[in-house]
C-alpha cells in the first residue's frame, strides 16, 4: 500500500475475517482500512469480522466512529463484527470523551481479546442469524 511495514493485516479464517491494526492510524489510514475491510467481506463472503485494536494508541471520536461505521456496513453486508483488544486506559479515555452510541443506538459488539471474540462469533453463528444476538435466546 505505502511501502513501509503493513499498518493493518486482514486474514481469513473460515468464514471469519480477522483484521489486526498494528499501529496508530491516522484518519485517512482508518478510512482506507474501512474500505479494504468492507470490500473483503464481500470477496470472502464472510459471516463474521473481528477487528483487533489492541495496538491503537487512542480511540478518539473519529476512530470510534469509524469502527461503528464498519460494524454497521458489515451488518448490512451480512457479517457480524466484534471489536477486540480495547486497552483499559483507552476504554477509560473513551468513556470520558463520552462516546455513547449515537442516536441510532447501534452498539458495537466487543470482546476482551481475539479468543473471546472468536468464541462470541461462533455462538452467534450456531445460534442465530448474523447481526442479531436475539436469535439465540430460546
Amino acid at each position, binding site marked *: 500500500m505505502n511501502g513501509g511495514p503493513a499498518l493493518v493485516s486482514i486474514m481469513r479464517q473460515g468464514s471469519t475475517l480477522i483484521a489486526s491494526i498494528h499501529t496508530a492510524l491516522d484518519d485517512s489510514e482508518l478510512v482506507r482500512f474501512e474500505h479494504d475491510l468492507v470490500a473483503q467481506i464481500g470477496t470472502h463472503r464472510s459471516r463474521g469480522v473481528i477487528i483487533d485494536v489492541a495496538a491503537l*494508541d487512542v480511540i478518539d471520536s473519529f476512530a470510534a466512529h469509524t469502527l461503528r461505521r464498519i460494524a454497521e456496513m458489515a451488518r448490512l453486508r451480512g457479517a457480524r463484527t466484534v471489536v477486540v483488544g480495547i486497552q483499559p*486506559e483507552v476504554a477509560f*479515555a473513551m468513556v*470520558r*470523551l*463520552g462516546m455513547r452510541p449515537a442516536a441510532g443506538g447501534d452498539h458495537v459488539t466487543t470482546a476482551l481479546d481475539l479468543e473471546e471474540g472468536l468464541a462470541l462469533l461462533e455462538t452467534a453463528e450456531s445460534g442465530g442469524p448474523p447481526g442479531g444476538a436475539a436469535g439465540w435466546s430460546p
Partner: protein
Amino acid sequence: MGGVDSGPDDRPADLPAQAVADLIPIVRRVVGGRVGGHPAAEDLVQETLTRVLAASATIEPGMLEPYAIVTARNVVASMWRDEDRKRRNQHRVVDLSEPESPEARLVLDEEQGAMAQALARLTERERLTLLAHEVGGTDTRTLAEQAGSTAGAVAAQLNRTRARLRVEYLLAARQVEPPTDRCRPVLIALSSADQRRQREVGAAQHLLECETCAQLSEPLLERGQHRDGTLRIPITADPDIVAARTAVRSLASSLAFGPTELTVIATAVSEVCRNIVRFAGSGEVVVELLDSPRRGLQVVARDAGPGIDDVDAAMADGFSTYGGLGLGLPGVRRLMDEFAVASEPGHGTTVTMTKWERKDHG
C-alpha cells in the same frame, strides 16, 4: 604561538626534534582533512608539532606518529570548541553562521549591506550605546555611569536593541516590508524571546495569520528554540494528528502520569488537532511542562481558521461527541483538568488545556 622552527635549528643533533619535523606531512594531512583550506590550518599544524615536541621525551620511539595524529585531532577539536565558545559568549549583533567558503564570504558582503541598513533604523541613542558596547568594548557599568543609569538597565536596553536589530536586519536582508502594523512588535517580541511580551502582542496568533512573519520568525525562533519541556508541532494534515499525540504523550511521560492519564491526554490532543485539520486547515500545537502551581502539562492548540461563532453552543454538553456542533469539545473538557476555548469568528480558535500531575504521585 611559537613554531617548531627554533627546535631543529638550535639543536640539530637532537633526534626527537628531527623526528618531529618528519611528522610535518602527516600532521598536515590530518589537519587538512579536518579543516580543509581554513586560514588557521598551518597554525594548527605548528601548534600540534609544538605539543608533540614538548612531549617527545616521554613518548616511546615507535609511538611518535600515532601520538602526533591524536594530538592533531585534539588541537583541531579544541579550536572548534574555542570558536564555538567565542561565538556563544560574544554578544552577537546578529546571528550569522560562520562563513566557511569563499562563496559564503561573498554573501557576507551583501549581509553587511543589510546590517548597515538595519543599524540605520535604530534610534541614535540605541545605535551609539550598542556600538560603544559591541564595537568599542565599553562595559555596561561604564555605559550606565555615562547615562546616569544602572548596569542592569543598560544591559536590558542592549538586549532590546539587539532584538530590534535582528529584526531590522532580517527585514533588510530579505528586502521585505512588514505587511501590517502588528508585524514589527510581534517580530521584536519573538526576537527578544520575551514570552510575556509575545503574549501581549498575540505573537503566536499573528504568525498563523501572517505569511511574511511566519517566514521571518524561523531564524528568530531558532535562537531560543531548544528549551527542554516545550514542544511546537505544526498541524496541517491527518498524519500530524498522530504525530502530535505521540509527541505529547512522550513529553508527558516525563511527568508522573500513569498510562491512563497519558492516553487521556493523547486522546484530547487527537481531538483538538482534528478540529484544526478539519475546520481550519492548519495550525499548531504548543505543549509546555508547567512547574507551578504544581507540575503539569499544558497544551495550546491554535489555528487561524474561521473560528467558532458560538463558543457556548460548541461547549454545550449533549454528552454525545456527535451532538452539539460536532467539535467534540465537551468531551475534551472532560478529559482534561483545565480547559478554555477562545475564538473569534474569522480569527481562529485557541484551545488551552491542562492536565495536572496527581498529588498522590508525589
